[in-house]
């Protein structure tokens, strides 16, 4: 068990910078996720921690020991690969025992360790089978068992769940989180699935184009995203982003889109210095759950829009509204919206919760103003 410290890690393939200045400090026993779209450098980062790829520059330390350029076998890390990396020619037992045999442990010790870990992963009945006789879920369990069987300092997982069906994935999420917390080994998990990261992580690192965008707890990533990319990447359906200008309307600061004005909270606008941004373009972000809809417009629900598409998901209904050229997705519970029209083309009125409006800089993508509702200090009052 150990902490991981990564300083200004860079990996170049020719002129292409796959990983650009990554700095991470992972505490002992933490479950950290590397989240990002494919090709963002998350897997390369993981492979550099494992020693399968050598960094162009930077420093990696595991448990205070500099391992930057050490070969994999001197690092004592356990790893699960995307396609499991199980050996076809060995039985499940042989696969799990492999890392122990490499360390030339005694036969009896190997057997007892393999059996113990097989019980944990509930694969005792398939120990004598070959990998090609197993289901995807079982393969997954064997791969994890092979990682768990060693006393590794750090566990690394490279999209281990991408071959599982949705139902199995849901089960494995809970199980893996439980195992990680029970074993208590520092774990880095690479995924492109924001749901996986949000549900299992202690902290999430969001990466894009080789750069680290944000390193924070799931809640902070969700409620206080550092950039527009993070805001839209996390959350399903994704955050609505509208192009707007900050203007003064009837003495109040509002965000004016092409077709309607979004009223902003006056205190919040003042705290974020929006007065200095009058007449500059911004991008307004609102999560679907922070838009309320009514049948008829009233003092609060001023934005009149046409229902473009209605998507029931069971407990919740998604209304995709169209106002001029702007599309907005809303999400509300089925009971709340039971009386609303579900007919496409019907007219509805919407209200953006002023407590949950984000502003992003259109040029840099950085967050100008975090939503008022996400302010932790205010919540405590």
């Amino acid at each position: 068990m150990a902490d991981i410290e990564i300083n200004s890690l860079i990996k170049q393939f020719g002129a292409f910078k796959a990983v650009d200045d990554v700095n991470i400090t992972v505490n002992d026993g933490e479950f950290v996720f590397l989240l990002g779209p494919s090709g963002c450098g998350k897997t390369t980062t993981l492979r550099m921690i494992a020693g399968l790829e050598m960094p162009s520059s930077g420093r990696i330390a595991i448990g205070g020991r500099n391992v930057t350029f050490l070969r994999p076998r001197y690092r004592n890390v356990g790893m699960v690969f995307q396609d499991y990396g199980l050996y076809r020619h060995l039985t499940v037992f042989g696969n799990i025992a492999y890392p122990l045999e490499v360390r030339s442990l005694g036969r009896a010790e190997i057997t007892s360790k393999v059996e113990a870990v097989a019980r944990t992963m509930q694969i005792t009945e398939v120990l004598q089978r070959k990998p090609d006789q197993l289901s995807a879920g079982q393969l997954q369990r064997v791969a994890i068992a092979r990682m768990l069987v060693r006393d590794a300092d750090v566990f690394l997982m490279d999209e281990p769940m991408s071959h599982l069906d949705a139902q199995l994935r849901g089960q494995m999420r809970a199980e893996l989180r439980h195992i990680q917390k029970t074993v208590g080994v520092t774990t880095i998990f690479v995924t492109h699935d924001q749901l996986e990261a949000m549900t299992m992580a202690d902290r999430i690192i969001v990466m894009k184009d080789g750069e680290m965008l944000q390193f924070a707890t799931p809640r902070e990533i969700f409620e206080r995203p550092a950039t527009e990319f993070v805001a839209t990447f996390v959350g399903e359906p994704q955050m609505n982003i509208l192009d707007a200008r900050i203007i003064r309307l009837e003495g109040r600061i509002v965000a004016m889109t092409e077709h309607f004005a979004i009223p902003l909270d006056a205190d919040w606008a003042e705290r974020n210095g929006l007065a200095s941004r009058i007449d500059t373009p911004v991008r307004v972000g609102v999560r679907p759950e922070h838009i309320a809809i009514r049948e008829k417009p009233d003092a609060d629900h001023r934005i009149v829009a046409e229902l473009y598409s209605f998507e029931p998901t069971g407990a919740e209904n998604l209304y995709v509204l169209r106002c001029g050229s702007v599309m907005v997705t809303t999400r509300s519970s089925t009971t709340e919206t039971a009386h609303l029209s579900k007919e496409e083309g019907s007219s509805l009125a919407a209200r953006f919760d002023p407590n949950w409006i984000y502003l992003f800089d259109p040029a840099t993508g950085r967050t100008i103003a975090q939503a008022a509702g996400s302010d932790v200090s205010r919540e405590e009052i």
Partner: protein
Amino acid sequence: MKKLTYSMESPAAPLVQRNWWVYVVLILVCLVNFVPYLWVVMTGFMDGASASSATPAWFFTPSLEAFHYLIVEKGIMKNFFNSVIVSLASTFFSVTIGMFCAYALARYDFTGRDDVSFWVLTNRMMPPVAVLIPIFVTFQTAGLLDTLAGLIILYTAMQLPFVVWMLTGYFRDIPRRYEESAMVDGDTWFSAFRKVTLPLMMPSITATSIFVMILSWNEFAFATFLTSTQAKTMPPAIMAYSIGADIRWNVLGAAVVLITAPLILFVLLLQRQLISGLSQGVVRK
């Protein structure tokens, strides 16, 4: 209890394969391939007179005259063992060296990699006989004429391109993950290669070895020119003993039995490996 007789099969899909013409084609192919061989084997067991008679006979009294002549009088078993040594050794060397070349070509991305693999391929484009005289002179200078070592070196060099080409493709089919996972688990690169990649490669390596061995075993042109008494292998020996002023058909037949029998036994024994090796990479799990 009586079994239910209805079946779930659709009537359009008959349970029995009824494409009888497949068998007709197969029988024809087998006839074309096996009748000449059968005839040669039969000739080997005839005596000199019936083998060279103008009217071929399907029924005759078998005689071991030709075998006696070859084995006892001419001592062809010496040539036989020369062939065994040369083909085993050259197969071993070309497959071992070729395996590492193929691994490098399949796994590492280095400048000129494609040029190297193309150059390897071009080695197969030239007819080997074209370099017969230069090689003869080289062997003469190096004192390798009529030595087993000379033939082993030559065959190894001749078979290497083939081995490299076959094995490069097979290595590419084995995901790198296997080695990487073994290395993370604490292995060195070489033991990961030996314990993980090699067992997976075994069927392909066996198939390649069989091909290489057959080619070395049957090689005629170089063996004829580069050996005389000490290191003569089977193919030139057969020609020397059976073809003189006239062709002694029964001796030729007996020699064919001697030279093909080990190969047939060898392939029959390794048939399963050979088939799974050839279909590697074709069948995906």
